[in-house]
C-alpha cells in the first residue's frame, strides 16, 4: 500500500515563505545547475550535489546541506526521479501529486459530483475545493513530457466549467505527447456549447470515459441516483462525437447492471457504435459499495455467461472491448483475451486460493478491498 501524503514531514533550514508549492524531485547528481534551484534532490547515497532548492531524506539521517531539508518516513521509499511533490511547510505536510513510475497517474479535480452512484468508490462531498485546480495547474508544467498518459477524475471534473477547460488546455500546452483520459459522467456535455469548447481545444490525444449502466433510462438513473441523468449522459456522448472528442463507455458490473448486460451491448452497437472503447469493470468493494452491498453484490461466476454474451456482441461489432477488475478463473476462457491487468500495482492482491494458479501472472487479481467480499468460485487454474 502506497501512502501519497503525510502530515509529519519534518521541514528544517531556511524555509522560503509560501503556503504551498509544487516541486519536481530529482535523483540525478548531474542535473544541470540551472534547473537545480527549483527542484528537490532525493538523497539516496553519500554524494549530495550542491545547488538544489530542497533536499529530501527518506528514512535516513539528515546531513548538513546549504538548503532547506525535508525528512520523510519510510512510507516514501518509492519516491523516484521525476515525481512531483506538493510542499506545505507551515503544516508539516507533503503530498505526492505525480508518480513518474506509476502506470497511470490520476488527478482528482474535485470531490463534488451531480451523480450519487450506488457503488461510488470516491463518495462525493459538496465542498469548495477550487484550490485543487490551482495545484494541478502548477504541477502540470513540472511533469516530464515523455509520460504516456495522465487521467483526470473526481467527483465530476466538468462541474469546474471553464476551469476544467483551462486544465485540458494546460495538458495540451505542457504535455504535447501525453494522452489525457478524463473520467466524467458526461452530463455537462449535454450542453452542445460546452462539448464544443472541449473539442475546440484540439487536444492531441484525449478520451472521455463515460459510464452508461443500462439500455433502459430508469435503471441507469437509479444506479446513479439522479433522475434525468441518462438522457443528459447520452446527449453528452452524442455532442462529444459531434465535436470530434473520442468517447469510452465504462460499465460497472453488479446486481443492477448485469441482468441486461447483453441488451446494453446490443444497444451500444446500434446507437453508439462510434465509441472508441468499452470497458466492463468488476465491482470495487469500497466507498458506497459497502453501504449498498445487498443491492450490488452478485458473484461474478453467476454472470460469467452474460458477460461472455455481451463481450461477443461488442467484439463482433468491432468495438474495442476490455474487461477490468476481473479474475481469470471467473470468466470464460474464450474471453480471456479481453481481460486486462487494470488494478494499480499497489492495490493489486491475490487470495490464498490463487497461490497454486498457473496463470496468476496474467490475472488482474483483486483490489485490496476485495477482502470484504469476493467470489466463492475463486480457484487455481491448473497448468
Amino acid at each position: 500500500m502506497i501512502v501519497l501524503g503525510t502530515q509529519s514531514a519534518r521541514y528544517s533550514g531556511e524555509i522560503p515563505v509560501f503556503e504551498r508549492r509544487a516541486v519536481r524531485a530529482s535523483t540525478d547528481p548531474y542535473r544541470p545547475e540551472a534547473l537545480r534551484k527549483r527542484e528537490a534532490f532525493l538523497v539516496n547515497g553519500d554524494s549530495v550535489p550542491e545547488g538544489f532548492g530542497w533536499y529530501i531524506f527518506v528514512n535516513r539521517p539528515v546531513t548538513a546541506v546549504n538548503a532547506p531539508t525535508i525528512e520523510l518516513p519510510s512510507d516514501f521509499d518509492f519516491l523516484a526521479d521525476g515525481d512531483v511533490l506538493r510542499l506545505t511547510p507551515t503544516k508539516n505536510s507533503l503530498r505526492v501529486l505525480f508518480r513518474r513510475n506509476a502506470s497511470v497517474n490520476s488527478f482528482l479535480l474535485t470531490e463534488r459530483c451531480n451523480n450519487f452512484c450506488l457503488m461510488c468508490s470516491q463518495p462525493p462531498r459538496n465542498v469548495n475545493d477550487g484550490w485543487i485546480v490551482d495545484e494541478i495547474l502548477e504541477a502540470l508544467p513540472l511533469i516530464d513530457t515523455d509520460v504516456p498518459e495522465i487521467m483526470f477524475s473526481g467527483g465530476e471534473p466538468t462541474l469546474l466549467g471553464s476551469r476544467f477547460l483551462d486544465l485540458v488546455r494546460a495538458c495540451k500546452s505542457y504535455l504535447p505527447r501525453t494522452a489525457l483520459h478524463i473520467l466524467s459522467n458526461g452530463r455537462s456535455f449535454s450542453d452542445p456549447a460546452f462539448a464544443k469548447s472541449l473539442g475546440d481545444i484540439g487536444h492531441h490525444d484525449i478520451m472521455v470515459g463515460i459510464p452508461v449502466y443500462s439500455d433502459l433510462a430508469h435503471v441507469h438513473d437509479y444506479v446513479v441516483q439522479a433522475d434525468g441523468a441518462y438522457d443528459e449522459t447520452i446527449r453528452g456522448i452524442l455532442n462529444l462525437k459531434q465535436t470530434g472528442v473520442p468517447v469510452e463507455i465504462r460499465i460497472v458490473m453488479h446486481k443492477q447492471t448485469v441482468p441486461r448486460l447483453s441488451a446494453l451491448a446490443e444497444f451500444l452497437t446500434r446507437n453508439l457504435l462510434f465509441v472508441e472503447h468499452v470497458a466492463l469493470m468488476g465491482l470495487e468493494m469500497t466507498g458506497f459499495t459497502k453501504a449498498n452491498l445487498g443491492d450490488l453484490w452478485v458473484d461474478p461466476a453467476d454472470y460469467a455467461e452474460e458477460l461472455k454474451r455481451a463481450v461477443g456482441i461488442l467484439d463482433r461489432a468491432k468495438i474495442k472491448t476490455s474487461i477490468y477488475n476481473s479474475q481469470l478463473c471467473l470468466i470464460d476462457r474464450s474471453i480471456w483475451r479481453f481481460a486486462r491487468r487494470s488494478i494499480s500495482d499497489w492495490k493489486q492482491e491475490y487470495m490464498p486460493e490463487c497461490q497454486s494458479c498457473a496463470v496468476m501472472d496474467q490475472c488482474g487479481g483483486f483490489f485490496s478491498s476485495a477482502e470484504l467480499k469476493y467470489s466463492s468460485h475463486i480457484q487455481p487454474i491448473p497448468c
Partner: protein
Amino acid sequence: MSKFQALERYENSLKSGYRLLPFRFTQLSGDDYVLSNLVGEFVVLKRSVLNDFSKGCLLPHDPAFEELKSKHFLIDDDSSVVVDLLALKLRTKLAPLANFTALHLFVTTLRCDHSCPYCQVSRANDDRQEFDMSEETALKSIDLAFRSPSQVLKFEFQGGESLLNLNLIRFIIEEVKRRNAEQRRDIQFVIATNLALLSDEAIELARQHDVLISTSLDGPEELHNRNRPRPGNDSYKRTIEGIQRVRRELGRDRVGALMTTTAASLSLVRGIIDEYIAQDFRGIFLRPLSPYGFAIKTKFYQAYDQSKWLEFYFEGLDYIIDLNLKGFGFTEYYAAMVLRKMLTPFQPGYVDLLSPSGAGVAAVVYNYDGDVYASDESRMLAEMGDKRFCIGNVHSNTYEEIFLNDTLLEALESSFAASVPMCSWCAFEPYCGADPVFHHATQSDFVGKKPLSAFCNRNMSVFKGLIERMNSRPEVREIFERWAYM
C-alpha cells in the same frame, strides 16, 4: 432512512404509460410476428403480445416491454433522448444518398469469346470493331463521371469480354488518373472479365494501377463449362488458371468471383459452394438469375420457378451456416448484405436493394455506343428492344439532361418503397429496395403489383428465412453478426 432512493422512484413509466413510435409488423409464421422500426431494428413477438403492445396495455415489467423500449419502438416519461437517437440512426442510414453516383460502369466492347446461353447482354462474336467503345465516347463518359459529387469513384469495365478492348481500358485508366491528380478523389478500378484471354499486358496494367479483377465462376468444371461454352470447351480451366495467376501476381485478395444460377445449378448448390472453397474464396454470392437479355429469350428464366430458387438458396445458406458452426469461416454475401441492414446502423450500397432505387443514382452505365443507362439491367432491357431506361447519350446530352431525365425521376419517385402500396406497411421495408427496372420489365409498371412480383416474393422469403434462423439459434445469430460487420 437511507440516503439512496429505490428503483421505483426512477421508473416513471409505471405512472405515465407509453406512446408508440413508428413501426411496422409482418407475420413470420403461425403466431410469430416481426416488428421493425424506422431504422431496421426488429423484435419478434407473439400475436397476443403485439396486440397488447399496440393497444397500449403492455406492462413495464414485461420482458417484451423492455425489449421494445430498448430498441426504440416506444417512448415514455423516463427518457426523451430516444427521439434524438432514432433521428441520428435514420440520418446514418440515409447519409450515403448524398454521395450520389459512385459506381460508373463502362461497356468497353460487346464482343465476347464465350457464347453463354444465359448471357444477359447481346454478344458480337466476331472481330468487327463496331461494338467497341471509342476514345471519344470514353472521354465524354469520364467527363460525366467526374461531375458526380461522390468522393469515391469506382470505374468498372464490362463487356462482352472487356479485355478484348484492353487498349481502351488503359486509355480510360490513364485519363482518369491524369484528371484525378487535381481532383484527389478516392478512385478504384475493376475489370470484369472471364479471364480466358488474360494477357501479360492486362496483368501489368492491373498491377500498375491497383485494378481489382472480378470474374465468373459458376461452379464445378462440368457445370461451369456447360453454362459457359467457348471454342475448345475450356472455360473452367482458363478461369481457374486466371484466378491463380491473379492471386500469384497481384495478391490473393485482388480477384473476386460471381456465379450465375441456371436450371442446371439448382440441384448442385453444395458442389458450387465446395468449388468456391476449393478455389480459396472465403465466400460466395448465391445469385438469382435476372429476367433480362438472353435469359428470357432462351426460356432459361422460366425453366425454374421462384420456389426452386429459394430451395436452392436456403440449402446453400444452411450448408454454409453449418461450415461456420464447425469453425470454418465462409460467407454468403447476399445474406451478409441484408444482415448489415438488419443488425448494424449502416446502409450497404448494394444497388439492387436501395430505396430510393439505386438506378442512375448509385450506379450508371456508359454503353459502348455512348448511350447512358440507369443500371446494368437497363442496358440488358435495351438489348431486348426496350430502351425505356436509356437516359441519354454522352455525345448529345448534358449531365443535367441525363440525370434529371424524366423517365428516371418518375421511376425513382413512384417506386420509393416507403410510399408504395404493400411496401409502405411491410416490416421488411427497411431492408428492401425499389426496383423500377425489374418491375417495368416484368409488369410494365415502375411500381408493380407486389403479390405478383418475383422480386418481392424472393426478398420477403430471404428476410423471413434469415430472421427465423437467427431468432431460433443464438449460435447462428453470432455468425450473422460477424457477416454483418465484415
